[in-house]
């Protein structure tokens, strides 16, 4: 009886299986997983059949097949990094498209945007992505400081508010900054103008270390920075992010807000942020007039209609940046006194007020983008951008309430790009661009304009193609630019001058990528060119604490003496466009728990344009240090190395090293203001759940920046004033102060998450070290800020309901 019961029991449970084996499951599902916004296939997405142990991943074209399914109706769970999980009930054997929506990085989710799909034409170039979490942990930081955590990247600054990214020794208008795909149009000259971009609400910042002139536009001799603001995602429930932060040094605070939502056909966002920082302090004294005030707003709207995506974005930034008071001295004599003093000549009690010298800027950017996804693997994109940059700069002078520089710069951009269908494995992009800039001086500065009025027009066309053969990818690109310049300037005696000149230039790039079992190798050689900026050509006279003379304003007279009486015509001068050849290689090795990343590069720049001190000239106001713009052939060789190792599940270290050798090889002498060698070591303790928190990450970062041993020789300024040091136009390059000593800095941060909250407490310059940075123009006058403790808190509300 017992046996019978057992048999019946087994029969009852095994029967369905036996029947199933007799009738093999023959249903199958095949489909394609696409990005809901872009219709781009999503490779390596995981497709799982709910309730079964059956799953697969999509191939490179987003296709997948699951065979041998018993039921005709199945529930599919589709997931991929960076996208919201999709659950769909699927019937029948039909081939279907599945659309995944990009995910809004939430506080309760792990950020995994690191492996962004690289733009065509840049795959073979070493690049680094900063995600929202890294950006938001210090909301008051600038684009320059945010990127400086990357090996090989640092920033040139004028004080604490104006910070320009430097990639492999190049900065300013040798780095292309794209704001939502539009070249940021601003007064990009000198060291005192940083891109006016609020990164508090940036979704992602991509740094490309190679010459990407072909893909993004000439001028990218050193690299490119792509800033993307809030994503316009479809099928996204309503969300709101609110953030506040406060910091001790400068009693600064920031508040920011972002909200958005996406339905099947519409998506929008709105964001805003406000920052206010007072005077900062160095360990030993106040940095008088070093505050900042900034307001940013942004809105975006996307409409999807069948194969058409129409998106518009608008952003606005209003900045008021103080410049250290002691760096604008009333007289040349005071300047000499100041650079020889250990402490700033002017130290006042701390204040939140921003007075002269300062810069007030408003930047408007409006952009429209129309995408026609006319085929699965092809699309046509039209982008129109309009930018208005209004800038006023105030100097310490008789008319301090009147701006000494008052400029309106209008930039227009039109791009038409065709991502063509695969031609026998050849994938690529063909585009045409029109770019124009119109710079106007506003009346009433009581000063002769340091930058002339100008119009620049550029027509460009480019093609970038790639082909994959197994584990090898080959890339090639070609670009043709035609640029015309029309210049109208005015002299101090109110007479005018004009100049018109134009260029035709060809740039190209070649790249190779090889994927290995546990690593990859990338190699790229690219050319880029840029014409001298109108400031580099035409600047004349007082500029902050110095006199500066542009390439066309400065000549050697018959006696070999400097002369600045005439304005040379561009076509009659020996001024040449800058032309760069950058060769960059990246080796990546992933082994067990460690990752090695080595980037080795060389960059040869013909007719490199730079400014340097030339002499001390006597004026009615006393002796003044004069700078000129000069050209030379320069060579940059360097390497960045990064080693990340996970020692245990929770503890990892990051070791970084950047080396750059640079020289004016034309004249066989040093270059000025080049980044010194730097090295860093950080230790990270990532404890996941701790004390009821859902995430806890403690990071200690130490860094040592060496003294710049490749700096030019030093001639003390007194020797120049007294005439005991004889300098001529042909003398070797010099500086008036030795480069500052090397320095060791320690930063500590603790990032936590709890429910919908995330927060961080961070200490910069934890040891309150007094130091000066060789790349800070104010190194002549004051130390860098001392210890700063930053507390930030973010709250995210995300409605559970999906508006489907």
């Amino acid at each position, binding site marked *: 009886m017992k046996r019978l019961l057992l048999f019946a029991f087994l029969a009852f449970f095994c029967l369905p299986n036996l029947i199933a084996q007799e009738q093999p499951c023959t249903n199958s599902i095949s489909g394609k997983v696409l990005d809901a916004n872009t219709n781009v296939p999503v490779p390596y997405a995981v497709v799982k059949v709910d309730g079964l142990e059956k799953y697969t991943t999509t191939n490179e074209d987003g296709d997948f097949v699951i065979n041998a399914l018993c039921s005709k109706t199945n529930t599919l769970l589709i997931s991929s990094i960076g996208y919201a999980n999709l659950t769909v009930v699927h019937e029948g054997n039909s081939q279907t498209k599945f659309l995944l929506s990009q995910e809004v990085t939430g506080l309760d989710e792990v950020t995994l945007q690191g492996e962004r799909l690289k733009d065509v034409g840049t795959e073979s170039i070493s690049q680094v992505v900063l995600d929202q979490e890294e950006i938001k942990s210090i909301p008051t930081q600038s684009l320059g400081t945010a990127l400086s955590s990357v090996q090989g990247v640092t920033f040139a600054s004028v004080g604490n508010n104006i910070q320009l990214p430097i990639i492999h020794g190049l900065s300013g208008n040798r780095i292309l900054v794209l704001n939502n795909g539009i070249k940021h149009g601003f007064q990009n000259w000198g060291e005192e103008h940083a891109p006016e971009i609020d990164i508090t609400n940036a979704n992602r910042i991509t740094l490309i270390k190679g010459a990407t002139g072909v893909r993004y536009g000439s001028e990218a001799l050193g690299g490119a920075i792509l800033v993307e603001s809030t994503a316009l995602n479809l099928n996204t429930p309503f969300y709101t992010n609110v953030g506040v932060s406060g910091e001790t040094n400068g009693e600064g605070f920031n508040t920011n807000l972002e909200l958005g939502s996406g339905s099947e056909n519409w998506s929008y966002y709105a964001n805003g942020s406000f920052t206010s920082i007072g005077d900062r302090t160095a360990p030993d004294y106040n940095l008088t007039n070093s505050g900042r005030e900034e307001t940013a707003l942004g809105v975006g709207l996307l409409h999807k209609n069948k194969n058409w995506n129409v998106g518009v974005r608008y952003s606005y930034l209003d900045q008021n940046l103080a410049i250290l008071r002691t760096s604008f001295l009333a007289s040349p004599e005071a300047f000499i006194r100041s650079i020889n003093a250990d402490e700033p000549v002017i130290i006042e009690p701390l204040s939140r007020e921003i007075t002269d010298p300062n810069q007030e800027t408003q930047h408007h950017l409006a952009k429209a983008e129309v995408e026609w996804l006319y085929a699965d693997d092809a699309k046509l994109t039209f982008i*129109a951008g309009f930018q208005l940059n209004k800038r006023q700069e105030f100097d310490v002078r*008789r008319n301090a309430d009147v701006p000494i520089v008052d400029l309106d710069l209008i930039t227009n951009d039109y791009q038409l790009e065709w991502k063509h269908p695969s031609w026998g494995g050849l994938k690529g992009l063909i585009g045409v661009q029109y770019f124009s800039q119109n710079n106007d001086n506003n009346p009433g500065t009581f000063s002769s304009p340091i930058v002339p009025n100008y119009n620049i027009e550029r027509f460009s066309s480019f093609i970038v193609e790639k082909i994959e053969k197994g584990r090898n990818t080959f890339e090639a690109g070609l670009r043709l630019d035609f640029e015309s310049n029309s210049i109208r300037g005015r002299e101090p005696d109110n007479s005018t001058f004009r100049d018109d000149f134009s260029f035709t230039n060809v740039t190209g790039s070649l790249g190779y990528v090889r994927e290995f079992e546990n690593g990859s190798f990338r190699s790229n050689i690219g050319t880029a060119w840029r014409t001298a900026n109108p400031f580099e050509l035409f600047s004349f006279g007082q500029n902050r604490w110095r006199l500066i003379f542009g390439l066309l304003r400065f000549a050697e007279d018959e006696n070999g003496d400097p002369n*600045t009486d005439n304005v040379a015509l561009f076509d009659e001068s020996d001024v040449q466009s800058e032309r760069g050849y950058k060769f960059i290689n990246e080796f990546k090795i992933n082994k067990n728990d460690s990752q090695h990343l080595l980037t080795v590069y060389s960059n040869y720049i013909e007719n490199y344009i730079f400014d340097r001190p030339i002499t001390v000239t006597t004026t009615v*106001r006393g002796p003044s240090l004069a700078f000129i713009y000069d050209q030379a052939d320069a060579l940059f060789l360097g390497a960045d190395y990064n080693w990340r190792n996970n020692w245990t599940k929770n503890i990892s270290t990051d070791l970084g090293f950047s080396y750059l050798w640079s020289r004016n090889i034309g004249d066989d002498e040093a270059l000025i203001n080049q980044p010194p060698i730097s090295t860093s070591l950080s230790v990270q303790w990532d404890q996941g759940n701790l004390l009821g928190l859902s995430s806890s990450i403690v990071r200690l970062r130490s860094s040592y920046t060496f003294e710049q041993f490749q700096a030019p020789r030093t001639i003390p300024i007194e020797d120049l004033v007294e005439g005991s040091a004889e300098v001529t136009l042909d003398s070797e390059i010099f500086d008036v102060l030795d480069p500052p000593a090397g320095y060791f800095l320690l930063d500590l941060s603790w990032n936590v998450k709890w429910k919908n909250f995330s927060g961080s407490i961070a200490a910069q310059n934890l040891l309150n070290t007094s130091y000066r940075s060789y790349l800070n123009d104010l190194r002549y006058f004051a130390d860098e800020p001392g210890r700063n403790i930053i507390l930030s808190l973010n709250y995210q509300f995300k409605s559970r309901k999906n508006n489907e």
Partner: protein
Amino acid sequence: MKTIENLKNYKLLAILFIAIIVVSCSDDDDAPPEENLPEVITTVTLIFTPDGGGTPITATAVDPDGEGIQDLIEDPAGITLAANTTYTLTYTILNTLPDPDEDIGEEIEEEDDEHQIFYEFTADAFSSPTGDGNLGAGNADDDINYEDEDSDAQDGSGNPVGLVTTWTTAGTLMSGTFRANLQHQPGVKTADSDSTDGDTDFDLTFDLVIQ
């Protein structure tokens, strides 16, 4: 239905292209506006008039190219005064960039409550004033024979300006220097302000010979 959708898209593109044309047509061809550069000083002449008559002794500093890189030209190369003589020092201060020249001296007189000229010279070159001048931090009260004071002093009493001063030379001096420094001190000039306050309008050093 599809045609309507397409029409909508074309409309959108049309609007965009119109926007482009409108924006692209805003080019201009103007030079920067004319600017009036107030109180630029290109030429300073020191005029030493001997008491009781005689030919005044002048020394002129000219910045031939304004903000340009050329050095200042002093004509004559120095100041040569007679020993044991009293002189009254006055100025001609010009901006020669506009045509006709602009007399900055008049403007300084009008704004005398915002200006002061400080002096520095080889010690004991003069029997009056004695010492080596009143230039430098905290030295404003040192001996200088100011013969003028401002009309509308900010601290209630007249402070020296320095457009008129008197100098009595001591014995012979083979090689000395004479420095005159005009400071612009709006809202800063008081009885206690010195040559490190405000900003510099001119700061000239001449060789000085007394024979």
